[in-house]
């Protein structure tokens, strides 16, 4: 029998602050199901309940009502966490450890054998592009490097499920692209990924499915294309089309019931420009 990777059933989370009458409802009746091997993006503005959802999945906080299972196992059991790797939002880790030491520490926490650990650390440092910085203390790391060591730390025990809280926040576009590529390669290996983000463009390229959270409710959920596609519109992008051809097309359209909304040159996004510029100078 195969289990869903994550199964969240009717989870409600109410935060009660002592000495204050009003309680904050962070999540209302959340249902979520993520299949093994899927990359799922949880979107929403700050304070929408993304982090709360992730923390509940990881057992860091307990839901007021409802239940969560990870690969069929109740998530409050410590053993359920053997399958999970987690990258917290803005993680700092111990600043006084080097990158390699940080990974070694987490390897011990996961019960990795000594013989396997060293090889695994080198492998992961290479995967996140920190081989040269492995012996530097984390206090000297940049935000992007911290995020990458955090990712390596989450992967140390080769988990079946990877949970990433704002993986690309504060990382420059190149770093962000690397992280997306890493996620894509993990997906190819069959790892399930759940990530949260408030920057919509960053997730659209890697996610199979996305859910949109707002004020603790799941407002929309589905495949990206079907969520974003406008049913009654079509986009044509042509290369080397002569002005005559375009004029002809326009005339043809005018003779039917269809309507041309816009005719323009597609623009590169600032991000694409950035990548193009930096890649050319690197070589």
């Amino acid at each position: 029998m195969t289990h869903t990777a994550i199964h969240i059933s009717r989870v409600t989370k109410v935060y009660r602050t002592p000495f204050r009458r009003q309680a904050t409802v962070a999540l209302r009746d959340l249902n979520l199901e993520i299949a093994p091997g899927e990359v799922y993006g949880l979107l929403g503005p700050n304070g929408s309940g993304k982090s709360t959802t992730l923390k509940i999945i990881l057992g860091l906080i307990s839901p007021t009502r409802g239940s969560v299972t990870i690969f069929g196992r109740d998530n409050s059991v410590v053993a359920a966490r053997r399958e999970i790797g987690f990258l917290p939002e803005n993680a700092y880790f111990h600043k006084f450890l080097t990158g390699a030491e940080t990974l070694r520490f987490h390897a011990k926490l996961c019960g990795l054998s000594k013989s396997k650990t060293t090889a695994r650390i080198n492998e992961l440092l290479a995967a996140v592009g920190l081989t040269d910085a492995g012996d530097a203390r984390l206090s000297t790391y940049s935000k992007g490097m911290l995020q990458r060591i955090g990712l390596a730390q989450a992967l140390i025990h080769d988990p079946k499920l990877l949970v990433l809280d704002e993986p690309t926040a504060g990382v420059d576009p190149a770093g962000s692209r690397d992280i997306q590529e890493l996620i894509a390669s993990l997906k190819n290996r069959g790892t399930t990924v759940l990530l949260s983000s408030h920057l919509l463009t960053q997730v659209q390229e890697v996610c199979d499915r996305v859910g949109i959270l707002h004020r603790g409710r799941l407002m929309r959920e589905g495949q990206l294309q079907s969520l974003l596609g406008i049913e009654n519109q079509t986009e044509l992008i042509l290369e080397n089309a002569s002005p005559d051809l375009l004029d002809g097309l326009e005339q043809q359209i005018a003779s039917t019931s269809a309507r041309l909304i816009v005719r323009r040159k597609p623009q590169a996004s600032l991000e694409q420009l950035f990548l193009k510029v930096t890649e050319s100078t690197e070589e």
Partner: protein
Amino acid sequence: MITSLRRIRAIAGTTLIELARLRVFYVLVLFALVLIVSSTFLARISFQQELQVTKDISLGAINFFLSLLAIVATAQLLPRDIEDRVVYSVLAKPVPRFEYILGKFLGVVGLLAISLAAMSVLCLVVLHLREQSALHEVNRQIEQLAPDQLSSTVRVIHTAGVNRDLIAALVLVLAKSAILAATTLCISAFATSNIFTITAMAMVYLIGHLESIAREYWLQEHVAGWPKRTFLALVAFIFPDLQAFNLSDQVIGGVPIPAHLIEQLLGLAAFYIVSYILLATAIFYQREL
């Protein structure tokens, strides 16, 4: 729940490095200053008195600094981990919260043991030097003393100097500060600020030394009226009896400490530590991170 020694050791080791890098060892420099200043002051008093008082003040200072270290170092462990989100990446791993708390505690105990060792060595060296100079002085006066008078003077100097009970008293100082560390973990498991933890621990420290009085009053039914009795019972239950661990009186007085008392005290310390660690774990399990 399968407990893993390796995991606990990893957490304890990292905690120890973390604490060692916090410059808490400056406390030791302060200790050395106290010791040196006081012993130069004391050189004005006679030998036997000087040795006893030096030993006394060193023990008092070790006691004070180690307690201070236990409270201050432990108070900021959990808040710091939560602030830096280290706690998320650790607890998202298959690490039971019990192991996390125990690892933190053992890290602090490691720090305390190292500090105690350093202070003790310093203190023993000073005592030994003073003892030697006292013996030297006696040898110089040898012509003026009858042989049996000489041997008794030498014996007095030895009892006043380094002996087995001094070591026992030092071990108990460590036990006491470990209890304080466990209690601090308990409070910091629900506290929202370091200041609160440290203030609360200052109270625990003071009340802990009076716990035996509350206990005896409660048990002997000296006090009428249930509000007072309830209060005393609560004090007597919640707080550890810290006064019991102060054996410096015996040591300085040269009264031998019975071995079974030391065993009992170590047993009591273990009882307190296990209780407070379990309580800290229970509180930490409830905590929303």
